């Protein structure tokens, strides 16, 4: 019954919004927040109205034909079968209309392909299924994961406003600065899209594409990956936060400070509970996609962690897998993506959760061990 009500509500909203264009943003392209996106929006509206007019004329003429020339008693259909002048005329007419559309499109295209220098260069890397952002000038680097939790996706918890369009760490950019994006990928092809910037550029492994934007107003802008990149293609949103240049400076310094703080944290004495708690969060964001909430995985591609001999008894190997990834498998290296604390915590979590505590050696991993591993490598 609730469902039927919802269906009716949906139908009514849609019917109502069509003629009135009440929710213009729900049915049309966004004009976006910079000069280029507005120009593309105007271009879109121009060709849209040209197409609407052509469509209306053709469909209107069809209706006239259907009404005026329906079969009547004793009528004699005409027998002409061509009219060269008329045919030439409309061929030329089509060409003219196309030229009218092509000219502004060409100019917009040229403006979109501007290779001018950027104030800030950001390297964007698509990973299955998250984005990595590296600020080339400021040496800040982080990963951006979907933060919508599984309960919402599985319809257990109510869905938040930005369902599937929210991340743990957005890309932060300053307003009124020219931002240049260098876009590449780590595994398969992804595509980085923020509708408000009119930037959509494929991220291709081994190649670097460029795009740019300049945002006039502060705000949060959301987009998604637009190239099928495997199982969780629908779950790697893009969130960009535009802040004032001053706030941006603050943010960069904070990020740098946090890096130092993070290093200090490895020296701290950690309790099992603390690690378990952090680890659970890390696991929810980074691991559940493949290894599942219950740790059962999706064999044969994604192995189970619950009851796995490796997780139960081989701490050293487990650290190595987290740090280096598994060659030829979906498991990637988390050495760069997660902090020492997070890695230690998530390993601890997997060794304690789902009854692993009882059946394995139950040893925990502290951040220091991860740091030692890193240092030994060097």
């Amino acid at each position, binding site marked *: 019954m609730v469902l039927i009500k919802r269906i009716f509500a949906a139908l009514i909203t849609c019917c109502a919004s069509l003629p009135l264009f009440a929710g213009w943003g729900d049915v049309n392209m966004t004009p976006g927040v910079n000069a280029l996106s507005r120009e593309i929006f105007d271009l879109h509206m121009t060709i849209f109205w040209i197409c609407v007019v052509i469509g209306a004329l053709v469909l209107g003429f*069809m209706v006239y034909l*259907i009404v005026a020339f329906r079969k009547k008693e004793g009528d004699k259909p005409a027998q*002409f079968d061509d009219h060269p002048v008329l045919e030439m005329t409309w*061929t030329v007419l089509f060409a003219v209309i196309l030229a009218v559309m092509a000219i502004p499109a060409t100019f917009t*295209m040229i403006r979109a392909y501007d290779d001018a220098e950027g104030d800030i260069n950001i390297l964007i890397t698509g990973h299955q299924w998250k984005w990595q952002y590296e600020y080339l000038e400021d040496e800040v680097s982080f990963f951006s994961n979907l933060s919508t939790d599984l309960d919402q996706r599985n319809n257990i918890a109510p869905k938040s406003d930005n369902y599937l369009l929210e991340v743990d760490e957005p890309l932060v950019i300053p307003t009124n600065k020219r931002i240049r994006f260098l876009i590449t990928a780590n595994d398969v092809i992804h595509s980085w899209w923020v509708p408000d910037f009119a930037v*959509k550029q494929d991220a291709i492994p081994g190649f670097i*594409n460029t795009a740019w934007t300049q945002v006039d107003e502060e705000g949060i802008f959301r987009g998604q990956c637009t190239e099928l990149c495997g199982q969780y293609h*629908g779950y790697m949103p893009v969130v960009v936060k535009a802040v004032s240049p001053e706030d941006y400076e603050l943010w960069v310094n904070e990020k740098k400070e946090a890096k130092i703080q993070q290093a200090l944290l490895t020296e701290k004495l950690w309790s099992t509970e603390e690690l378990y708690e952090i680890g659970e969060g890390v696991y929810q964001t980074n691991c559940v996609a493949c290894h599942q909430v219950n740790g059962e995985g999706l064999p044969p591609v994604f192995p189970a962690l619950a009851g796995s001999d490796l997780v139960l008894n081989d701490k050293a190997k487990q650290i190595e897998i987290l740090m280096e990834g598994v060659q030829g498998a979906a498991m990637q290296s988390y050495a760069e993506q997660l902090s020492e604390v997070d890695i230690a915590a998530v390993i601890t979590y997997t060794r304690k959760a789902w009854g692993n505590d009882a059946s394995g050696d139950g040893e925990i991993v502290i951040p220091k061990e991860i740091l030692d591993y890193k240092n030994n490598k060097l």
Partner: protein
Amino acid sequence: MSAVIDSHSDDHHHGPAKGITRWLYTTNHKDIGTLYLWFSFLMLFLGGAMAMVIRAELFEPGSQIVSPEFYNQMLTNHGLIMVFGAVMPAFVGLANWIIPMQIGAPDMALPRMNNLSFWILPVAFGILISTFFMEGGGPNFGWTFYAPLSTTYAPPTVTFFIFAVHIMGASSIMGSINIITTILNMRAPGMTFMKMPLFTWTWLITAYLLIAVMPVLAGAVTMMLMDIHFGTSFFNAAGGGDPVLFQHVFWFFGHPEVYIMILPAFGIVSHIIETFSRKPIFGYTSMVYAIASIAILSFIVWAHHMFTVGMPIAGELFFMYTTMLIAIPTGVKVFNWLSTMFKGSISFETPMLFSIAFVALFTIGGLSGLMLAIAPADFQYHDTYFVVAHFHYVLVPGAIFGIIAGVYYWLPKWTGNMYDEVLGKTHFWMSFISVNITFFPMHFVGLAGMPRRIPDYALQFADFNMVISIGAFIFGLTQLLFLFIILKSIFAGKQATSEVWEGAKGLEWTVASPAPYHTFETPPEVK
């Protein structure tokens, strides 16, 4: 020419064999046409069932009935099955039935190869579908199977997928060779090229397109196979290859393929509009040239599918201009159809209804295609539901309505009975309304920013997606009515005359209804 007829003289005077062997060993163009049509109908329901799964998953935000992985398998196989299993075999089936009768030939030029080209199709799709029951599941990388998702990152069953694509390609190539050879060599005396019926014309050009591009597809999947199993690096950047190269090779096949799926429908619709307007087709010559120029242009527009891969601006502009040019011959065709109706005496039987809907809705699909051709605007449209709306408008109310119209038009010739007109009209109105409920809102969600190929979506797309799903369910169910109408006309219905439709022109309307097992054993004279 006479030798062709002689080679059949052994089965001249008896009808079809009895039982299953009739279908397994048949070399009769009508039998093979029937087989193709039933096969494509079966595939339509299979691909349609997958579409229903997709729409059920997208009915509401949140995970509904399938996992994201299975969802990807559904959307991949929905695409593959509809393109290679439903639309293409349906056109080949119509070609088999109708072309020999339209040109006054006794059969296809290569009847044994005809049998083979059909019977390898079920094998190909059997292999494709069997991958669902193997470890790793079916293909899950989209019907466009972009590398490296379809190579390094593919499920192990990709090898079976490649094998299946090879067989489908071989079938299409054999079918096309057969059709071209038949049309070029077996026309009745007096039937010059410019007297050929338009359906035959469209198929002649389509067959050339198929012969030109199916081998390229075969090459592409062969390169994939070598990358996966033999250590080559065609599409692998590590070895000096390039994943973007795959897209170029694929779309060099893929874009002509799009026209392969629509050109024969142009032919069908031309016949039907002419018949039911009781007026000769307007601008026959310009129709032929328009089809030919669409076919030629289709080879130089492929990269408009790849505006966002990072092409140099010269490339973007070149492909934008060439793509826009296609609008000219397409517009000519639409205006020719309208001019055919002008001052006619139009009646609205089911085939005509579907044809009029074809012209109207294909125009919408064509106009959204024109919008997509504008490269800078495509940065926003690319890979959103706007694209999904566009190609479904040209393929469902385009290609599939064309096929349905053709089936209603020629059904009395095949079965000897008229179909049930009331049910036919019901089928039309249900399909027409639901197809628009399904695909029109996709324009809106696409423009508002919903990417394609996602199993779950943000809340602002929820209302439209529910409407789309409801439309899709109605459209799906309606096609069961089509099955019933066809079955009914096979077993019962008003006896059809040879002419079937008042004033229908063409050699196929000079033979009895149902068409005898062998027709035009002596070539007719065309004036």
